[in-house]
C-alpha cells in the first residue's frame, strides 16, 4: 500500500490518518522541545499551562476564520476590545454577572461587525482599507471611553471586574468545557448544516456558489455573525481572566488579536485536517512555542512580540504557498 492510498478519504482509516498527520508532527516537535528544556514542557502542569494559554487564541483564530473569509477586516480587532469592555460594564454596573459579561460582549461584537460588513458590501471598497477605517472609528470610541473613565475616577483606570467576579469560567474544568463546546458546535455547523456547507462553498469560490443557487450575501452575513459571536466570547473570556481590557489607538488593536491571527494562518497550511480542529491545534502549537521560548530564558513581553511578528511573517508565507499549490 502506498502513501496515497493511506490518506484516501474513501476509507475510515484514511480519514482518521488525515486528521492525525499534523497532531503527530506537532507532538514530535513538542517532544523535541521537551528534550531541549530537560522535561519541563511535558510535566502535567506544563501541558496545562500551554493548553490554558491556547484557549483564547484558538477562539480568536476561529472567529477570524469566519469574519475574514472575504478579506482581512481589522474592524474585528477593535470590536473585540470594545465588546469586552461592554461586557465588563454590564457585569459591574448592571450586576448581570456571567450573563452580562458574555451577553454584552457577544451582542456588541455582533452589532459592530455587522455594521462593518454591511458597509464593506455596500461601498465595495477593498476590505483592508475599509476594515482599517472602521477599526480606527471603533478604537476612537474606546479611547473616548477610557478618557471619560479617567475624568470620572481619581485613580483614572477603566472599569474592571473585581478580583472574584466571573472567575469560574477561567478555572478548570469550565475553561476546558468552553473550549470543547466551541469546537463541537463549530464542527457541527461546518460539517452538518446547510449553512456550514454553503459557507464553505462561498468562501472557496463565491461565483460558482452563486451559480449553484446559494445566496452568498445571506451566507456571508450569517458567517460574520457567528465569527463576531466567537470574538465576543473571546472578549468576555479575556476580560474574565485579566479583569480589564485596555483600549488602544492608532490600529494598536491589531496586536490584541495577533496570536489568534497567527493560529489561523498556521492552520490554513494544514489542508487535510478539519479546519476547526486545525485552528485549535495550531493555537496549541503556538502557545507551546512561546512557553518553550520562556523556558529558554526569553523574557515575557517585548521579545515575545518580536517573535510573534516574525511567526506571523513566516506563517503568512506558508499559508500563501499552500493556497497557491492548491490551485
Amino acid at each position, binding site marked *: 500500500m502506498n502513501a496515497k492510498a493511506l490518506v484516501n478519504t474513501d476509507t475510515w482509516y484514511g480519514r482518521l490518518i488525515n486528521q492525525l498527520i499534523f497532531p503527530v508532527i506537532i507532538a514530535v516537535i513538542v517532544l523535541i522541545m521537551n528534550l531541549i528544556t530537560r522535561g519541563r514542557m511535558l510535566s502535567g502542569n506544563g501541558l496545562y499551562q500551554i493548553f490554558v494559554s491556547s484557549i483564547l487564541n484558538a477562539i480568536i483564530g476561529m472567529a477570524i476564520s469566519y469574519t475574514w473569509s472575504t478579506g482581512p477586516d481589522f474592524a474585528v480587532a477593535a470590536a473585540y476590545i470594545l465588546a469586552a469592555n461592554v461586557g465588563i460594564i454590564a457585569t459591574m454596573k448592571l450586576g448581570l454577572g456571567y450573563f452580562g459579561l458574555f451577553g454584552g460582549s457577544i451582542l456588541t461584537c455582533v452589532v459592530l461587525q455587522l455594521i462593518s460588513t454591511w458597509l464593506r458590501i455596500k461601498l465595495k471598497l477593498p476590505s483592508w482599507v475599509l476594515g482599517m477605517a472602521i477599526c480606527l472609528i471603533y478604537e476612537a470610541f474606546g479611547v473616548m471611553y477610557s478618557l471619560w473613565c479617567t475624568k470620572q475616577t481619581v485613580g483614572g483606570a477603566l472599569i474592571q471586574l473585581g478580583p472574584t467576579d466571573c472567575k469560574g469560567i477561567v478555572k478548570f474544568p469550565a475553561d476546558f468545557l468552553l473550549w470543547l463546546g466551541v469546537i463541537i458546535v463549530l464542527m457541527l455547523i461546518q460539517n*452538518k*448544516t446547510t449553512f456550514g*456547507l454553503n459557507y*464553505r*462553498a462561498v468562501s*472557496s*469560490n463565491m461565483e460558482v456558489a452563486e*451559480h449553484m*443557487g446559494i*445566496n452568498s450575501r445571506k451566507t456571508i452575513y450569517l458567517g460574520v455573525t457567528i465569527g463576531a459571536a466567537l470574538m465576543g466570547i473571546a472578549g468576555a473570556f479575556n476580560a474574565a481572566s485579566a479583569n480589564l481590557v485596555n483600549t488602544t489607538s492608532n490600529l494598536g488593536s491589531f496586536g490584541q488579536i495577533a496570536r489568534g491571527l497567527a493560529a489561523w494562518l498556521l492552520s490554513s497550511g494544514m489542508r487535510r485536517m478539519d479546519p476547526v480542529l486545525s485552528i485549535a491545534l495550531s493555537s496549541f502549537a503556538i502557545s507551546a512555542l512561546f512557553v518553550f521560548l520562556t523556558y529558554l530564558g526569553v523574557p515575557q513581553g517585548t521579545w515575545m512580540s518580536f517573535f510573534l511578528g516574525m511567526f506571523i511573517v513566516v506563517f503568512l508565507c506558508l499559508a500563501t504557498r499552500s493556497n497557491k499549490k492548491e490551485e
Partner: protein
Amino acid sequence: MSEKEILFEARGICKSFGPTRANQDVDITLRAGEIHALAGENGSGKSTLISILCGMQKPDAGEMFVKGQPYAPKSPLDAYANNIGFVVQELGIINDLPVAYNIYLGNLERYKQGPVLNTTSIFRDAKAELEKHGFDVPVRELAGNLPVEKRKLTEITKAMTVEPSILILDETTQALSYDTRHKLYGIIEEEKKKGTAILFVTHDVEEMCELADVVTVLRDGRLAADLEGDDVNVDNVRLKMVGRKVEGSYYRDDMEPSALPEVAVEVRDLSHGKAFQGVSFDVNYGEIVGICGLSDAGIHELGKTICGILKANTGTVYLPRKNKFIKSPKAAVNSGMAYVPKDRDSEALMMGTTIHYNELVPSLTELANTVGMIMPSDANNLSDTAAIDFNVRCLGTNQAIGALSGGNKQKVSISRWLVKQNLDILIMDCPTRGVDVGVKAYIYSLIKQLKEKGMALILVADEMSEAIGMADRIVVLKDGKLNGILNRHPGLDEHEVIEVMI
C-alpha cells in the same frame, strides 16, 4: 413543425453588457423528447442565452415560459425548481468541498433532519447516483483534487439530480475522453426517450449534426436560423454561423503551405506540469502555425509556456535569429516576441484605465529617451497611431477602455503589440473569441498581412475551422502530448484533424 409538446419557450430575449449586445431579440423553443443544439461562433451569444435560461443572469427584455407558465428565474434555484438541470461551460464546482456535497449543494433541503444534515445519506445517495450513470468518481474526495474530467462528471450528475425535464449542456463534451463522451451520449438518448427536452452547445459541428434534431444558430447575438430535418447538416450549419456576407474572403484563399526558409522559434521537448509534456516543433518566419486540441489537451498552456509566462519544467524555446532562449515574458518581449492572451478583460487589458495607457505598456522601454524619460508627446503619438492605424472605434485615446465593445478591445489588445518596431513573432490565443463577425474578418485579414510581412505567427485555436482556415501547419495535442503535425493542403477538413486529436 413538430407536433411534440412545448416544454420551454423564450421570446424576444435581449441582454447587453455595456456597449456589447450579447443577445438581441432571440427566440427559442424546446420540445419534449427533442435534442436541440445551439450553434454559433465564439462570442455569438450562446453562453449568455444559456445563463439567462438557467437564472444566472436577468434578461434586459423578453419573456420565458416553462410548460406554458411564465418563468422569470431570480436565481438558479428557480431553474432547479422548474426541473431545469444544467452544466455550465466553465467549471462549476467548489474545489474545497467533497464531490458528494458538490452534487447536492444548493439543494440540501431534503437531507435536513431538524437543524442538522444527514451527511451519511448525502454520501450514500451521491455514490448511488454516480454509479447509476456508470461514472467512477470518489464521493468523499475534495473536488479540487480530481482531474477535469471527473469534475465534469460530477457536474453532469448534479444536473441529473433535479430529475430534469429540460437538460442544458454547455460545451460539456469537450472535457471528456472518448469513452466518457459515449456514456454521456447514452444519457442523452435515454433522456430523450423519457421525453426530456435537451439543449446543448458544442464547438464540434459534426457532433452537433449527428445528435441534434433541431439546431438554432446565433450570429452576433441575433437569431440567424432555426434548422430542422434535412436542413441539419454540417455545411448548412456552418454557413449560417458565419453568414453569407463575409464568406470567401474570411479565411485564407490559398490552400498550399508557405513560409520563409529561416526558422524563427525552435520549441524542443517543452513541458509544463501536468498540462503538456515533451512537445517539439519549429515555426518559420512568414508562417502561421496553428495549435489545436480538445479542451484540456494543454494548447493554451503551450502558448503561454512558449513566451515564458508559464515556467517550463523541461525543454527550451530558442530564437535562432537573436540567439536567445526564452525563459520569462520579459525575455520574450525584449527579443521581439509578443503574446495576445485569450482572456482579454483579465489578462490582456488594464480595464480600469484608458486606451492610451493600454497601448503604452508593452512599449515603455522603447519610448524612453536618452536620459530615460518618456515624454508625454511621444507617448500620445504612440497611442494615437495605434488607435488610428488599427481602426479602434473610440471617442479618443483617453477614453475608458471598459466602454469599448469586445471587438474594439481586441483591436487594442493586438495593436498595443503591433506598434512595436522590432516585433517579429506573435502568439495569439483564440484572437477572435468574443468579437463580432466584422472584427473577426478584420483580424483574419490582419493575420494574413502579418504573414506576408514575414512575421512568425502561432495561433492557438479552440475552433478547429479557424486553424484549418488560417494555418500553414497545425500542431495537434492530445492529453498533453504532441499527437501529430498536419500540413495545409487542399481538402483539409475537420475530420482529418479530429482523427489526430482523439
